[in-house]
């Protein structure tokens, strides 16, 4: 098999998500009466990047064959904290941003530490810590409100040079400066190894514990970055359980659409980004097509099922289907 064929088959999940997104977004834009103006692109980018970051956060624990049910809560907690401390001058606001991201890292580290040293199931651990994080968010901001630093908020929620949505640039920077270095580092490769076969990874000298803790910590960082950007979109914070739940569940859907295996060891955060874009475009399609409100959830569900089925396309290129379960 030549090199490029190997690359395509290795990244088939991601490429499927990219293709799906391209098709859906083209349908959306060609039916949008304003077309692809910078304003339309920014509107789509601002809400898509939020989910893309949370989906990236979810991907990394999933790669280790775990699951992080607290990503939505970290997202909401970061939103509430940011609405309280990203205030004042631009300099103070930026320091506040750093503090919010640090909090995300701490939340993620706590998850990782409990999973590794407490030896609890990730799904139960993060269910519990998620409730705790949400509780802290509610404590910080019992009623919706807050006033963030407008200049930073308008900058991040606006366009760079009046054309490119800044949120997309932030996402690109995260991919280039966080995901790609992580993916090729021993910790990143360790995450894949642990997800494929934890015993084999251990026997081969992979730092299993470090890889797992790093995975959850990075997830906390990415989820809190999402929450920070939500704050810039809304100028305020709200401890909403509904939003936390929605983002957690949608992040798992985005991971699956992006071709990452829920059994671990296979996939990519890039795929999840496009998975998130696909999910958001499904919502946008409701804007350009006229559907009865009571049919909208049904429509979304059907499109979602089709998208996830496409994500499972690798069934077709496996000689022996038993390989799927190894």
């Amino acid at each position, binding site marked *: 098999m030549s090199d490029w064929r190997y690359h395509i088959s290795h990244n088939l999940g991601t490429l499927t998500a990219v293709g799906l997104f391209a098709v859906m977004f083209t349908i959306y834009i060609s039916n*949008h*009466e*304003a077309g692809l*103006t910078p*304003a*339309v692109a*920014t*509107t*789509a980018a*601002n*809400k898509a990047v*939020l989910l893309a970051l949370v989906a990236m956060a979810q991907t990394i624990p999933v790669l280790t064959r775990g699951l992080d049910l607290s990503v939505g809560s970290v997202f909401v907690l970061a939103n509430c904290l940011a609405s309280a401390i990203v205030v004042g001058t*631009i*300099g103070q606001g*930026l320091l506040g941003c750093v503090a919010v991201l640090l909090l995300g890292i701490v939340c993620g580290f706590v998850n990782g530490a409990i999973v590794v040293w407490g030896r609890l199931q990730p799904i139960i651990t993060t269910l519990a810590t998620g409730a705790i994080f949400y509780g802290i968010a509610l404590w910080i901001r019992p*009623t*919706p*409100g*807050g006033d963030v630093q*407008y*200049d*930073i*908020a*308008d*900058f991040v*929620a*606006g366009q*760079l040079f*009046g054309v490119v949505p800044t949120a997309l640039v932030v996402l690109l920077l995260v991919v280039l400066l966080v995901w790609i270095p992580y993916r090729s580092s021993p910790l990143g490769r360790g995450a894949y190894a642990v997800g494929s076969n934890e015993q084999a990874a251990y026997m081969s000298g992979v730092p299993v514990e470090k890889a797992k803790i790093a995975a959850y910590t990075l997830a906390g960082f990415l989820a809190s970055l999402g929450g920070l950007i*939500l704050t810039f*979109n*809304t*100028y*305020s914070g*709200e401890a*909403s359980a*509904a*939003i936390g739940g*929605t*983002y957690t569940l949608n992040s798992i859907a985005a991971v699956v659409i992006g071709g990452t295996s829920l059994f671990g060891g296979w996939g990519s955060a890039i795929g999840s980004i496009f998975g998130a874009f696909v999910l958001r475009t499904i*919502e*946008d399609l*409701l*804007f350009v097509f*006229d*559907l*009865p*409100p*009571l049919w*909208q959830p049904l429509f979304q569900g059907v499109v979602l099922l089709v998208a996830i089925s496409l994500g499972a396309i690798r069934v077709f290129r496996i000689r022996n289907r038993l390989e799927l379960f190894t």
Partner: protein
Amino acid sequence: MVRRFLKVLTGTVAALSFATSAIAGPEVVSGPGVQPECFAPLSAETKFLKFPKKEGPYRIALANGFVGNTWRIQMIKTAKAYSEQPDVAKDIKELKVVSTGTDVAAQIAAIDNFINSGYDAILTIAVNPTAFTPVIKRANKAGVVLVAFDNTFDSDEVIQVNENQFQIGVINGTWIKKNVPNGGKILEVRGLPGNSVDRDRHLGIRSVLEAADGPKYEIIEVVGNWDDGTAQKVTADAIAVHKKFDGVTVQGGSTGTVRALMDAGHPFVPVAGEAENGFRKLCAENADKGLLCSSAGQSPGLVAIAMKTAIEALKGETLPQFVSVPIPLVEHPDFKADVNFFPALTDNFFNSNDFPPCGVNILATDIMGKSEADN
């Protein structure tokens, strides 16, 4: 090094955000506004806004959040029914409805999409009162009339339309005071905890019943979540414990509350409740047995007033920044079948769709005849 980096970043942020700092929008003018009997300001401090006049007919959008309870569905149907009334239809080129669920980012994006697509006015029920400041700025900049109703914004930059919830509480309390004049034991069935509507109605009721110079009432409080099932259960529980009440106030789920009275064999007493069709049916049937009702409610017809407000704003009229909509109220003995309640319709139908001061009346048959389809 870090400091220098911060400084450069600060400069960049400041330079790039400069372009967005100029804000257009409505002009703040002095009142009174157009049709003050309909568009009443919330208080004496409410400021008046005036948008530049635009030529009609207008393109109007409804950016709804949550959909999936009968109130919201009836609200969407009402919007369509109202927009098709002949004297309204001539001003409306297009009405588009989108529901985005509970995700605040999705609702912001929907409003942005309507702004980007050049709609003249956008009506919305906000999923959160504080998160819309940036989108309000963008709407004002684009010259789009944004009108929030029902769940309103914490903002004085846009026109908002709502009923005075404290006043609804006062109406409830006054009914009890009038019909239980010598004091007694009152059951208060509250709404969804933490919500401003629940708080304001509660304070309104208490302001009447706890007045120092009035009769003495012992008030038993239960939480009914504005839901028939919950209200029925908590009322039944309260009757089991307290045996007898002299009057009942209920914020929502009134049908359930009255059914609980009936099921427990509790004698009929005066009830001040919401505007559900089932409640009014029971009131009309049992009035002669002592079920004396007052029925005032948050109407899904608010959407019609919001739409009327938006149209007046687009015509360049002066309007209060916060419109306090007249409360649709029916009290015993004015319950009339097929006028203010409808025996043929479901118990969940909200009856209060008649706003005489605004010249707005949407017939139940018109509402129920509309599909809830977005278009």
